[in-house]
């Protein structure tokens, strides 16, 4: 009952953050612009990619509104069921998924493909937040090991695809939430000791599960001059694209690196490089500002959340978005190995857009509900 009353107030200026919406819209627009620039405007026998992206964004807004309107406490109650569902989907993708470039990450649905790992990250945040919120005072076993065990099957299934990028993002959610919940020094120490002891096994597990091209990517990251013509190719082309943008960029459709397809995956994982090439360092500063503003607002939401679930949920979502953001830009700029992580809100892809928009809807939901706790 209270919820319904509050729903009416949710759109009032003081609760409903228009700045938040503005930032999302701005970033989405720049993403569509870059996709528009780099993909054929009139492809042979198909819809232009940027139009498809607009459709995904529309669907993303639907997800956003749904996540905004539902009480996150109610959503939280479904956490374990949703997590089980995600695990099932991750198994399905291994059995019946579509293989592309040596990885099996997508479930075909009609003409579309669905990437469960994008949603796995979101559901993991929800599950861990739910777990920690229900039992605030925990021993180290319950703080670290139990959630770790919850997280592990999902991680292994994602690495099996293999999808190193999503796996790392997934793992980072667990680590960030653990840090937010707070490891006391002794517990932290014990965990670190375990981590060190387990490292060779973990390394073997991770390295062994990697595809050749992934190992080579890591190798070329360690030694960038390894082979510019072959394995270091993507990283080099990406750096050339970004660097050649210089201060002002080459303008819309002017990015030779991306227009002439030297830059691979220009509309997906390397969309940032396309943007940086065409809009230069000034454009990059604007874009980084927009992202920083969005995360800043999200952090405000987490800081002002009035219950553990809200704060934990917000923190987890922020960690998820920030990790993808930093790793994606870092890899295109040659700071990290190329692992295949989409840039939130900008890379083309339905699963990524819908999952990210859901996460943002959930964040605004937390802000909207923070007053209700005192009623």
């Amino acid at each position, binding site marked *: 009952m209270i919820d319904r009353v509050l729903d009416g107030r949710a759109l009032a200026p003081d609760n409903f953050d228009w700045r938040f919406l503005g930032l999302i819209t701005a970033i989405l627009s720049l993403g569509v612009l870059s996709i528009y620039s780099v993909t054929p405007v009139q492809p042979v026998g198909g819809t232009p990619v940027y139009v498809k992206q607009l459709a995904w964004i529309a669907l993303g807004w639907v997800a956003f509104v749904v996540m905004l309107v539902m009480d996150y406490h109610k959503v939280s109650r479904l956490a374990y069921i949703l997590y089980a569902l995600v695990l099932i989907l991750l198994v399905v993708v291994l059995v019946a998924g579509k293989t592309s470039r040596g990885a099996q990450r997508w479930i075909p649905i009609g003409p579309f493909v669905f990437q469960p790992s994008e949603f796995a990250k979101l559901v993991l945040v929800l599950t861990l937040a739910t777990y920690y919120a229900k039992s605030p005072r925990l021993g180290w076993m319950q703080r670290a090991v139990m959630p770790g065990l919850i997280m592990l099957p999902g991680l292994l299934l994602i690495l099996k695809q293999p999808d190193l990028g999503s796996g790392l993002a997934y793992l980072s959610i667990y680590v960030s939430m653990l840090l937010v919940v707070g490891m006391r020094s002794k517990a932290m120490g014990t965990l670190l000791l375990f981590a060190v002891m387990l490292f060779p096994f973990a390394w073997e597990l991770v390295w062994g599960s990697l595809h050749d091209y992934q190992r080579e990517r890591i190798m070329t990251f360690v030694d960038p001059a390894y082979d510019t013509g072959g394995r270091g190719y993507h990283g080099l082309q990406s750096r*050339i694209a970004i*660097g*050649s943008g210089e201060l002002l960029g080459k303008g819309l459709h002017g990015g030779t690196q991306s227009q002439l397809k030297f830059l691979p995956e220009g509309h997906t994982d390397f969309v940032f490089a396309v943007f940086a090439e065409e809009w230069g360092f000034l454009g990059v500063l604007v874009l980084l500002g927009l*992202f920083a503003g969005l995360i800043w607002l999200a952090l405000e939401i987490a800081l002002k959340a*009035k219950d553990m679930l809200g704060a934990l949920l917000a923190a987890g979502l922020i960690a998820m978005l920030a990790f993808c953001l930093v790793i994606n830009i870092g890899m295109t700029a040659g700071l990290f190995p190329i692992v295949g992580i989409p840039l939130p809100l900008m890379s083309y892809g339905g699963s990524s857009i819908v999952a990210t928009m859901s996460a943002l809807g959930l964040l605004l939901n937390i802000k909207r509900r923070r007053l209700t706790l005192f009623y």
Partner: protein
Amino acid sequence: MSVRGSTTHDELRELQQRLLLFKISLLLVMGLLALRLWYLQINEGSYYRDLSENNRTRAVVMEPVRGLIYDRNGVLLANNVPSFGLYVTLEDVKDRKALIATLVNFVGLDEAAVRKKLSERGSRLLPRKVKDGLTLREAALIESHRLDLPGVMVRAESQRNYPGGPTAAHLLGYVGEVSSDQLERPEYAELHLGSIIGQYGVERTYDRFLRGRSGQKTVEVNAMGHEKRTVEVEKPLAGDDLYLTIDARLQGLAEQLLGEESGAIIAIETTTGDVLAMASRPVFDPNVLSRELTAKQWDKIVQDEGHPLTNRATQGQYPPGSTFKIIVAAAGLETGTVNTTTRVRCLGGYPFGGRVYRDWKAGGHGVMGIVDAIVDSCDVFFYTIGQRLGIDTMAEFAERFGLGQETGVELPSERTGIVPSTAWKVKARNEPWMPGETISAAIGQGFTTVTPMQMAMVMTTVAGKGESFRPRIVRAIKERATGQVLELPSVPRPKLALKPETYELLHESLEAVVTRGTAGRARSGLVRIAGKTGTAQTAALKDDRRKDQEIPKKLRDHAWFVSFAPAEAPRIAVAVLIENMGHGGSWAAPMAKQVIEAYVKNKPAGPATVAVAMRGRHD
């Protein structure tokens, strides 16, 4: 593990304090990213801008059209025809193995050859030719699969073509891709892997005129290496055209006369040094050699027992046989060793050092003067003079007539033959000269070897009574850029100053060789011919007097006939050598006669001007 007593509210506040750390690290990380991007875009921006320019633009070499080659009358000897070449740019090839397999399947390439071609040194950015002369069907097949074959392209280009097939093959030569070794040489410095250069004949010696200069097209390419648009074009400069001194008609006749026999016929205009014909057999087809050859095809040509790649006119070295008597006679007259009154009795043999050097005529020629000795080619007479002259004097005169050195004809790898002397023997064989060897040398046997080209030049000298011109093959070069015709002048050689009486006597006796001597079969109703026969003994058959027909062909003597005409006012010198044909008078002399007759019959007085030649020019 301590369990702290704290309320949910405290817990939340604690959590949110830690989130402040998040805020700080967020600022830090965003700052770091901005810094990195500043470094890439501002600090290193121009470097990456350069890289991106090079990345998207490729310099595509535009091959020049090779100059054309005409004969002296404007008959086309070498031109270019359109052809499809298959190229691969390594930079754009993703999977080399798969590519080779596909190409082998599409156009029937030799797999090993392609693999070798692709692993050669050279730029990864420059397309390298894998095959040329694709059929239209093959070219279309490749083009229709272009998207599946990154780095592969078909280029329409020009292929060297010799309309006359093997006509004048040794003289014209052939073309081929420049080799890695050749690229290291300064003369080919401006070329690149895949450039076509002349590899033999005039194509090689005049390559720097014929080849032109390659142009360059800067094109924008995509990551597949496919051209998107042209940014800049620097047009190639076509090569210059050559007008040879060769008369295609005489050349054809000479080749037809040689037929299936091995040998050479050379005709030189004595008043200019123009080489009118230079035929060598066996022959090759330069059209075949100018295309991409498989290793097997190449081996077949190189290992052919007839050595078709040897230009017998300039690279074949044979004993001069009795044609050498011209030089011995000149040496004798000049040194006063003999004069017109000298008489030698020929009884069919010349005893020396315990053995008898036989005359070719059993029973001998009787008493001989120098004229008759030349006319009947009396060996004993020349044994006698040779013995008096000594080997070193004969060598001196041989060298003054141009033997033992290059004639300077502008063809690659000319051979010099051997002019033996006492010094030569010590140097070359590390043995002293044996007196008996002088006797053999006097009739052009033994160590002495000459090329047919040298003998033809000896005849121009004799015909011109000491005045002769350097042999030349190219009479004019037409610059493509300006249309200007550069006429190459005839270059006189230093005069061989012998006494006029010596030349008079040689002219008189050489004409008599034809009218009443050993070269009766060269007698012509059209023109007075002067000449000398020769029979170059093959080493194994010295003193063998069997009839030619009884000797296996491979071991038979080589037939010589060297000549000039008209005897009263010489304009042409002709040298004929036919391997394993036996006596020179029987076979070589009539061939020379036909060439000379053809020359005087069709040749208007005075040299053809290049202006005439120009009329026949067409690209």
